[in-house]
């Protein structure tokens, strides 16, 4: 297949205008010693029907769709309204560039403004950016921001923060002299208050806690925010399951200075890890330290309302090595889908979705913990995920469930070596009662 739009006649005329005999002349600047004098060793070109058949074949090698799956752990299956697919597929949203010429990009810019507004409403903060790569990278940016704002060199990190978020923070902070210290979790599944208190001090730039945390447990954000503020440290809340914000109090109202998280739940498919949607917001005072693009309202020369990218002096193309972040291309189209998703569900729809998650997860936890030998690992209140303690290693149980077309959850030992029999189970609104009952029945059978 070729997407070239020139005929042979066109090429001849163009060569004539340039004044050369062949296109080869245009590559005379390449050193002959390194010129590639053979075709690239790639598979031969496919026509469109062949390409579609080939890619369908690859997709068909995935059997995941055949399973009754209870996997969550930072990536969630939710209903996606069909309008999100059809509207976001419009070429006027898919093919434009970053809206650097605002006069011809008002569609993109207005939707970014709406997105920022929605994130502020959900998180209870004053300002939000236009998106970051994903929840993990957003957590890293939040940590870097706390350092910039306070000029301090230590960050306290909940061990119940998503393992990948912690790894990413480690990678991003390794070379810039930031010390990271973990705070453990207790029997309730929440952050250990005493440990936090003992580690807070005048050298702490920020404390980052996820809620609901990796185990699904909802944290006492107000208490931890107050402790952090008592030492003039910033309090960062990470949210991996964004739908929880429909029901749970906004972290900004509980004392969070920065909220970061993953917006994949808002209209993006699990898609084997991406593209996802990092979101981030902060209190008004820190606006100029917020990384990422930001859209703002203004007027044109005729007094008409319009939207522009603003505060660009924070960014790499102006501030270069002193920029708040090196981010340039972000996840704009994903943020657009999230905007469409949130505006379609609307206030009541999002709250109803969140409520269904809560009730279905509680129903599942209730049924599963009644199976002999199975109990809830943590006593803390949870949203749509919970950890079961099984009578034998979770990995062997999940293998047995898989043989019966069920993916019962995520065994936690690879992430928490002391939790050999722990299984993280996620139940969203897409799980019917029948699916949940099937899990309970098969799990009971497997454990007998």
């Amino acid at each position, binding site marked *: 297949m070729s*997407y*070239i*739009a*020139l005929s042979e006649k066109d090429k001849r*005329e*163009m060569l004539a205008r340039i004044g050369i005999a062949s296109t080869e002349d*245009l590559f005379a600047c*390449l050193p002959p010693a390194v010129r*590639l004098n053979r075709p690239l060793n790639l598979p*031969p*070109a496919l026509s469109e029907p062949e*390409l579609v058949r080939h*890619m369908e074949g*690859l*997709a068909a*090698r995935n059997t995941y769709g055949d399973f009754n799956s209870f996997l969550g752990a*930072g*990536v969630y299956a939710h209903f996606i309204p069909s309008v999100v697919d059809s509207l976001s597929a*419009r*070429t*006027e*949203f898919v093919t*434009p560039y970053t809206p650097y*010429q605002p*006069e*011809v990009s*008002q*569609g993109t810019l207005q939707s970014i*403004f*709406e997105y*920022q*507004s929605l994130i502020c409403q959900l998180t209870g903060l004053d300002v939000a950016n*236009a998106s970051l*790569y994903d929840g993990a990278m957003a957590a890293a940016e939040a940590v870097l921001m706390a350092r910039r704002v306070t000029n301090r060199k230590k960050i306290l990190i909940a061990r119940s923060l*998503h393992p990948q978020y912690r*790894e*990413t923070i480690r990678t*991003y902070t*390794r*070379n810039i002299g930031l010390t990271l210290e973990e705070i453990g979790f207790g029997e309730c599944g929440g952050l250990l208050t005493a440990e936090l208190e003992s580690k807070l001090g005048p050298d702490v730039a920020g404390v980052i806690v996820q809620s609901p945390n990796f185990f699904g447990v909802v944290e006492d954000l107000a208490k931890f925010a107050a402790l952090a503020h008592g030492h003039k440290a910033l309090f960062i809340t990470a949210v991996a399951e964004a739908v929880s914000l429909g*029901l749970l109090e906004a972290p900004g109202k509980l004392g969070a200075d920065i909220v970061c998280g993953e917006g994949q739940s808002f209209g993006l*498919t699990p*898609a084997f*890890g*991406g*593209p996802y949607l990092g979101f981030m917001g902060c209190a008004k005072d820190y606006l100029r330290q917020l990384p990422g693009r930001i*859209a*703002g309202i203004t007027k044109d020369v005729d007094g008409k309302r319009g939207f522009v990218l*603003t505060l660009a002096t924070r960014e*790499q193309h102006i*501030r270069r090595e002193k920029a708040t972040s090196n981010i*340039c*291309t*972000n996840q704009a189209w*994903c943020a657009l889908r999230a905007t469409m998703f*949130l505006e379609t569900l609307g*206030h009541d*729809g999002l709250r109803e979705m969140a409520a269904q998650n809560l009730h279905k997860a509680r*129903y599942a936890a209730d049924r599963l913990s009644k199976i002999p030998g199975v109990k809830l690992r943590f006593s803390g209140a949870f949203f749509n995920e919970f950890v079961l303690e099984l009578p034998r290693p979770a990995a062997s149980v999940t293998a047995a469930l898989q043989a019966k077309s069920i993916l019962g959850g995520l065994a936690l030992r690879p992430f928490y070596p002391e939790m050999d029999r722990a299984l993280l189970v996620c139940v969203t609104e897409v799980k*019917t009662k029948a699916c949940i009952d099937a899990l309970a029945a098969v799990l009971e059978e497997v454990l007998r």
Partner: protein
Amino acid sequence: MIREPLIFEISDKGKRAFGLPKLDVPEAAGALAGLPVRAEIEDFPQVSEVELVRHFTRLSQQNYCLDVGFYPLGSCTMKYNPKVNEKVAALPGFNSAHPYAPLDTVQGCLEVIKRLEDCLCEIAGLDAFTLQPSAGAQGELTGMMLVRAYLEKQGNPRKSVLMPDSAHGTNPSSAHLCGYTVQEIKSNARGMVDLEELDRRMNGDVAALMLTNPNTLGVFESDICRIAEIVHAKGGLLYMDGANMNALTGMVRPGDMGVDVLHINLHKTFSTPHGGGGPGSGPVGVKRILEPFLPVPIVEKNGGSFGLNFARPDSIGRVRGFYGNFLVMVKALAYILALGPQGMREIAEVAVLNSNYIRKSLEGVYHLQYDDATMHEVVFDDKFQKDARGITNLDIAKRLIDYGVHPPTISFPLIVHGALMIEPTETESKRDLDDFIATMKTIAREAEETPGVLKDAPHHSYVRRLDETAAARNPIVKWERPKTP
């Protein structure tokens, strides 16, 4: 065109645009106990489906886009986004796959990743690739972290990174995030790397040279092999910013030119759509010496099946969750498979032809700061128009909008004042190129005869020139409910 309100301005309580099935399990009694709940989401909108659809359909109509016309943004490589790629990226088999799924249930996804890595190795002339970085800037950061990790393992990470003053802003920004200080080398009179200057500045404290090739002027650094020698002789590494790969595909390979680490942009060279600002993907390719440091996990083929290897003690760790922007990889792989070896080579051949056609047609109409041969892009500037009538590149850009063309890049590279950086890519037709050339000539004439019409441009867009000063002085970045008097 109707002015489109914000969704909050048409919102009203009680409207619904999406219904969920009824809850089919009993409500848990006291479910909210112990939870900090909110009574409502203040100001969150409520609209009907029809209003939602009209809202976004009308918003879309305010956007210029690639499928409407020419988008000659230099270094952005705005080439046609094939629709078949959208189709295959929407396949349910790819979309439903959970990234924590047992590996035997997602073999198709793992194969996509491995196949794309292999193709990119061949195209770039390198030994291994990671597809984890989400965009070019993250690729640069990853690449520089690899450099640092390698040098650290050798015993000394070194202190600074060299780069030309024509570099894209993400280059110094990424180097800084790695703990390196940035040292700029002034370009020579031809806008290229000054070999003597490089030789003088290259020493045991310099970790790497970050180079874009062709550079941001569209000029190929033909001394590249000598540049690599100078850097390597002092134990440093050569990083190449592959944003301009569109000029090189199938003609020359970065690995063959002495490049040790390279990032490419799938949303540039490999046709994945720009989406108004992402998602992109910034894969990083490396020579064998850097392979042990790549981000985890690595996709491997073991016998007949694919797996993930997390046992990588020298890895720099993760730069984000999971494996990267997977659906973007699907589109890029489909593109490479559709083009095949001849098609890949034709990209560079025609991209460079199209750009030189524009260059030849506009020489003399607009000023060219540098004489050297240019490849896939050319940087004119506003000198003639500025000297004659005080018309700037911004005015020219805004006037192009009136003619239905997206302006070229104007704020970059920093070494050309008043730049007009034009990159047509290989997918433009001759008719569209000729239309653009004619329009640019018309605007040059207008600049001379009726400069006022440029100063006030655009005249025919949805909104006219916007007050960016006010937006920065008094930033309003979210909707606020108007206070009732």
